Every structure is written in C-alpha cells, then in structure tokens.
C-alpha cells in the first residue's frame, strides 16, 4: 500500500515540477512584450515618460533580473501563494482574482460533473436490456452528446432566458445585489447558476448514459452473468454485479472529467457571462496578462493532479483487484 502511494506521489511530484516549469516558460517565451502593450494602452507618447514607466514596470514585475533568478523567484513566491500582480487588472494581486472566481467555477462544475455522472450511470444501467427505455434513452443520449455544446448553451440562454424570461442570461448573481448570506442573495445565486448548470449537466448526461448502457450489456453477456443465471440467481442480483463491474471504466472517465473541471467551464462561462476562472483565462490571454495566466494554469494543474490522486484512492476502494495487486506486490 505504501509503495503504491509512494510511487504515485513521486510521479505526481515530478509532473508538478514539470508543469510549473512549463507554466513559467510559456508566457515568457511567447511573442509580444506585456510591458510594451501596457505602455501602449497607457497612451503615453513622451519618450522620457515612456522610459520612466518602462523602467518602473520592468523592475516591478522583476523582468530586470537574470532568467534563472526569475525562475527561482517564481518557485519561492508560489509557495507563499503569491502569483504576482495582474497586468490587466492592475494592481490587483492574481491570487485575489483567482480566489474571487474559483467558487463560481467549482460551484458550477462539481455538481454538474458529479450529478450528470450519477444520473447518467443510473439511467444507462436502467435502460440496458429494457427495450422501451433503450429505444428512447439511447437516441436522446446520442443527440445530447453530439450537440455542439456552444449551440445548446446559446439555445438554452435564448429560449429559457430571453424568450421565456425564466432565467437571467448574465452574471453570477443579480446586478442589483451585493454578496451576503441573505436569502435573496442565495436565491439569486441559484437562479443564475441554474442555466449554466443545466447546460453542462445535459451535455454530460448523454455521454455517461450511453457508456453505461453499453458496458452493462457487455457485462450481462459475459460468462459470469450467464453462469449466475444458470445457477438460478435472480436477475436483480446479476444486474448488481454487472453494474459494479461496468462502473470501473466509468470511474476512469470521471477522473478525466474532474481533470478538465476548471478549464471545461470556459465556454459555459463565456456564453452565460459567468464570472469564473474560464472567463478570467480568456481575458488573461486576450490581454497578455501572463501573471494571471500563470496563476490560472497553476490552479488547473493542481486541480488535475488532485483529482487524479483522489481517483487513485477511489480505485483502491472499489476495485478489489487493485488491492490484491498491491498485496501481491508486497508479498
């Protein structure tokens, strides 16, 4: 057991170092000079003023130090939770911006991924081998997964938002409110959350349902099911065994989904103007704000690694073969 986790942790550590390094490198070696574009935005034409401002910003962002020093500074600052100052939302610290956006993204993505996973699996398992359900769930599932996400989202926003007027089309909460733990605020939060959530939920649901249905059919036709049936076991019991076996590939799928959790919300957040990490990343790219970009990517990297680690633990819990394998390795 220790060896298993030791190895996993080592790999994660290595991945982390590599990811941080790449993350640090990309913006620095990207074409374009953020200080220059900042000065261009400042509409300063006076050469002395331009030089004074340039020198000031270069030292503020630490670009005047040797590259290896910048790299070490980056690591040091990162462990203090300091990702620098945003260029685009100057002079707000990047950490503040990300922390302001994270609750929206996680609040949207975690329920969407997990609920669609749960509901999709149940639906798929239920539909398998039931003619009537199968004939309806399968095509609907295919349509949902094949729908371009952007299109579905815009359609929902237009239909339920603009035309029916049931849901707002922009923002994380009503533009007339300020955050507080009051009932109107929470209600408004949920109201704004509903449409983006629904769009994510619907699109993911179809995929899970189809996957599960196919897996169940496969399991029900495998030898152990046939043998159980021959022994006279009730259909309910057989399905339960089939379900647990069919679950394993789905869990792997979930790991992947959780991995892209944060980045996956990008399109959703743009369509519904939802103030999460996705909108922030888009703006950071558009404005060449590479501190913000770095911070957001770091957050995603950590998210992916943590999600994978959790799935590793879950695997040990649900798949006896992993446990046996570990015991065997130790023996």
């Amino acid at each position: 057991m220790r060896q298993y986790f030791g190895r996993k942790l080592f790999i994660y550590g290595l991945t982390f170092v590599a990811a941080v390094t790449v993350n640090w490198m990309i913006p620095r070696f990207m074409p374009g000079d953020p200080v220059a574009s900042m000065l261009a935005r400042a509409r300063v034409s006076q050469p002395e003023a331009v030089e004074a401002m340039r020198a000031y910003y270069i030292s503020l962002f630490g670009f005047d130090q040797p590259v290896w020093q910048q790299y070490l500074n980056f690591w040091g600052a990162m462990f203090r939770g300091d990702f620098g100052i945003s260029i685009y939302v100057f002079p707000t610290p990047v950490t503040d911006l990300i922390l302001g956006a994270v609750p929206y993204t996680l609040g949207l993505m975690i329920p969407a991924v997990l609920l669609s996973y749960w509901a999709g699996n149940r639906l798929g398992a239920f539909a398998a081998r039931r003619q009537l359900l199968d004939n309806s769930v399968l095509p609907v599932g295919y349509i949902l997964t094949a729908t371009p996400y952007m299109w579905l989202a815009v359609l929902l926003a237009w239909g339920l938002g603009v035309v029916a007027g049931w849901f707002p089309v922009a923002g994380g909460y009503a533009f007339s409110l300020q955050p507080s733990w009051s009932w109107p605020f929470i209600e408004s939060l949920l109201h704004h959350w509903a449409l983006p959530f629904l769009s994510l939920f619907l699109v993911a649901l179809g995929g899970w349902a189809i996957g599960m249905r196919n897996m169940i059919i496969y399991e029900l036709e495998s030898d152990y099911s046939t043998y159980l049936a021959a022994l006279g076991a009730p259909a309910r019991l057989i399905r339960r065994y089939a379900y647990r076996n069919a679950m394993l590939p789905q869990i792997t799928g979930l790991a992947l989904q959780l991995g892209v959790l944060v980045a996956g919300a990008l399109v959703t957040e743009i369509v519904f103007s939802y103030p999460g990490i996705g909108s922030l990343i888009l703006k950071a790219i558009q404005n060449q704000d590479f501190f913000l970009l770095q911070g957001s990517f770091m957050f995603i990297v950590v998210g992916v690694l943590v999600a994978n680690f959790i799935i590793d633990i879950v695997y040990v819990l649900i798949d006896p073969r992993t446990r046996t394998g570990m015991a065997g390795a130790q023996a």
Partner: protein
Amino acid sequence: MQTRARILIPLLAAGLAAAACTGGGGAAAPTPDTTEAASAPADANAGGLPRNETLYTTGTQWGPPANFNPIREWDSATGTKGLVYETLFHYDPNEAKLVPWIAESGSWADDKTYEVKVRQGVTWADGKPLTAKDVAFSYSLGKMETVPFHNMWDWLENVEATDDQTVRFTFSDARYQEWDYNLYSRVIVPEHIWGGLSEEDVLNGVNENPVGSGAYSYQSHDQDRVVWVKRDGWWGKDALGMDPKPKYIVDVATPSNEVAMGMLLQKGLDLSNNFLPGVSNLINGNFGITSYYNEPPYMLSANTAWLVPNTTKKPMDDPAFRKALATSVDVKKIVEGVYGNLVKEASPTGLLPQWDQFVDQGVVSSDGFTFSTDEAKKMLADAGYRDRDGDGLVENKDGSKISLTIEVPTGWTDWMEAARVIAASGKAAGIEITPEFPDFNALVENRSKGNFDLIINNERQLSSSPWTYYDYMFNLPIQKTQNTVNFGRYENKEAWKLVQELDGVKTDDIEGMKEVISKIQKIHLDEMPIIPLWYNGLWAQSSNSTWKNWPSSAEGAPKYAATMWRNWMELGGFETLTQLQPAAD
C-alpha cells in the same frame, strides 16, 4: 452496502476535490465576496437595488474593474472620472464650447497667462471645501515623469493658487487648442488626501476609497460590475442646477454581443454602449430599444476610422501611390455591407461632422478624392506603377512585386470584414492586399514599432478641436516607438509646423483656425499620409423600460451624447444622466 457506496463515492470525491482544490489554490475556502469592499453599506442589500432607481449600463468596461485611480486614465474603472472625480470644464460638442464645471469661469489674462475662477461652495465627499489649491495641486501632479499628462509641463511653466478661488497658469509656450482640451480632460483630486502620496502611489495606487467632488461615490465592485451610488449634497445640484436621476448606477463589464443583446431585451440593461451588429432591426422593431436617430446612421459619430499606411515602406512612401490607394477603397460597401448603415462614410478630410465648419470645401473639391476603381488604376499607371507580369496586379517602379498586408485585431469582426473589403477593392484596382488578423497585443507592438504595411485605427475621439486630429496625423519627431500618434511615421516638417501654429491660435478665433486648417487640409489631401474611411458610431442603444427621455434627434429630446465611455462623461455623458426620467411617470 452497494447502494450506499454507489452514492457515496461521487459525494466523497466531491468533498475531497473541493477541499483539496481550494487548499491547493493557496488559501482558505473563499466566499464569493472576496473582492468586495468591506465598507459596502449593508442596508442597500436587503432586497437588492430598487429597479426603478437604478441605471444599468454596459459597453465601457472590458474586464474586471482594475482600480479607482483617476490618474490612471487608461485603465481605472470607467466612471472614476466623471462620476466621482470632476474636471474644471465640460465640453459641449453641439455648441462647440467649454462649459464651466468646477471652474466658474476661465480666461486668458494675457497671451501667456490663463486664470481660472473656482466656484464657491464646491465640496469634496468628505465635506472639505474644494479650493484653488486643489486645482493647482492636481495640475502640478503632471510634473511627475510617470504621470500621463507629464508632457503638458513642456509648455506650462507654473501654476499657482493666488487666493482660495483663483488659479493662475503661466505658460512658456501658449498652446491654446491643446490647453482647452486639457481643461476638460484633467481631473481635480483633493490635495489633503493626495498631497502625501509618493510618485509610486500616485501612479499605481488602487485608491479603493475614492474621495471626489462628483455626484456619485463608489459603493462596491466585483469581477463583472461596479456600483456607484448618488451622493447627497453634491454641490452641482444648486450651482449647476443639475440633478442626475438614477440613485444607483451599475456598470456591467461588457459581455459578449449575444449576452448584451439578451440583457437589453430582458430589460436588465438600460444603456448599452457597445457595438451590436444588426441592432437596426431592434430599433426598427417593437422592442422598446432606441438610439439617437431612428434611421441610418442611427448613431452619432464618435471618431474616424483611418487606414494608416506605413510611409517608411515602399511603395507607401510615395504620395501618388497613397492617393491611388485612397481612391481604390470602396467605403460605401463597408458602410452598407459590413455595418448595415450603422456608420457614415467619412469626408476626404476625415474631420467629424461636428467639425464641418472647419472643412475647406474648396480644397476638398480641388484636392480631395472619391472612390473609383478606374480612377485608381489610372493614377497608378500615371505614377509609374504598371502590371509587368500580366497577373492583373501592379508592380513597383523598379519591377519588384507589391504585396501588402492589412492588419486588424482578431475578433474585431466588423473590422475584419472591412479589411476584407479593402483588400478586395485594392485588388480590383491592381494593388495586392492581404488581410491579416493578429491578436490585439501583437498588433499594438507592430504598430508602435512600425512593423506593418497597413492598419486600421480609430483611437482619436471627438474633441474640442480638430487640432487633436492633426496632432495624430503629423506629430513629429518620430520616436523609436510611436504609441499614440503618427503610426504611419509620416515626416513632413512643414505640416507639423502648421499644426503647431494651429495650436497657437486662440480657440475663439474661428477664422484664424480655419485659415491654418485649410493649409493643413491641402497638405493632407495632397500627401494622403492617412486615409479616412468611415465615422465610427457613438454606440448607444437604450431601453425605455425603466428610464426614458434618452437623447435623440427627435424634437424636444436632449441632444447629449448618451455614453458612459471613458473620457466621454465630460462630453455629454454626465449631462445625459441629468435628463433621464423614470419611465413609470
């Protein structure tokens, strides 16, 4: 067990992921209001802002509000200047004159001395009086090298408060036109707060609790909005007889076009100052959405979109080629095809319709250009640009190929289409032009360093004087990086001398201005260093559901510019607020 496990696993994963992700992000679990100012009053929150007292606007702020520092004129939250901080004067483009604001009056005591009388009874939000000292202090901030209006001190020699109400500006070189522009562009900040700040704080401070003299004060902000609240006891209510009607102004960070359109239709927005393609359908339809005109061009004109050739490169260094290029562009096709008549074709001088009186029609008819593919072909041939290899496209005089690119920022869909039209009409006349769409920052960099062939630019806005346009065209000397003016790096000492001469003409001497401008216009039209294309609109779509009496061309309606854009509050944006009426009445 099985059933429980099945439900529990995802829940467990959720809990772990949530705990771990936020932990890994670097701090304790955040609440949604981390960006909220702690000082926000709680009472406004009970049921939210009352709809009938709140004005919702968008189209000014392109991202999260960055700071509330009025010295950072380029990225402070819009409204910082105009709603919270004020200027000595406003400018009325219709009457073409300065409107005294904090200043009671201002006049030239002699050719190099300007005296401003500050109004009695103007107070800051903290109750302290605004005096001549504050005005002198604010203009003195420009002595700091990193302050954007530092260059004013090249020609401004001294500013002093001679008594509590009088400020005297002494100039080493009186630039009357430029000075008028500064009078309504520079904010006045309180000396008792800003006096103690270092240069670094002045330039880079967030100023999260702005204390201004304006009608509104800061209430709260978040990633996608800023909320301003009307201040009781604003001095202007009595002194100016003006009273902005909305109690709250919520400035929503500009969302995508679809979302802005959706919000407007849902009546969640009162004023949208962004370009909405096809908005004429909404204005003509029965959607309760209005704009300044209810027929083309629908909007007032705000600035000129120019085609800027890089005059340091061949063949754009040849005036004859530039004139032929100007003649080849089918602007009508852009106006109709790309914009659906939401914009107007520019005059050959590029001066905005508000400056019509300064256009010398004689010069325009003798030296101007009009679109004609045949004429462009002829001009090219006359100048020695001929098609030598028979591909239908002309070559340089030395026989080398001409292959130009026109760059506009990617994602600016209307400009991208316009660039395609320009490329196509250039090709029709025999000039090979290829549209390219780099990202905005890359384009800015190319532009400032002069690494481009052709670009479209519209950064100069309507102002108190055409001088700002000519400064933009002819400014010399050429620097290593050209950040704001003369992107085409056009060098013409004579023209620049005339522009400076224009700067030295007093702003009430219209005839004198016309005389100099006519000479500049002749050079512009003969040399064509920059080619006017169309007048971009002052995009303003308003909804009548909560507020009415929006500015429009209709009789009896206010004639102000209905916009909250940066630097436009002083050009009629604020005045618009004072004219609104609740729709319920």
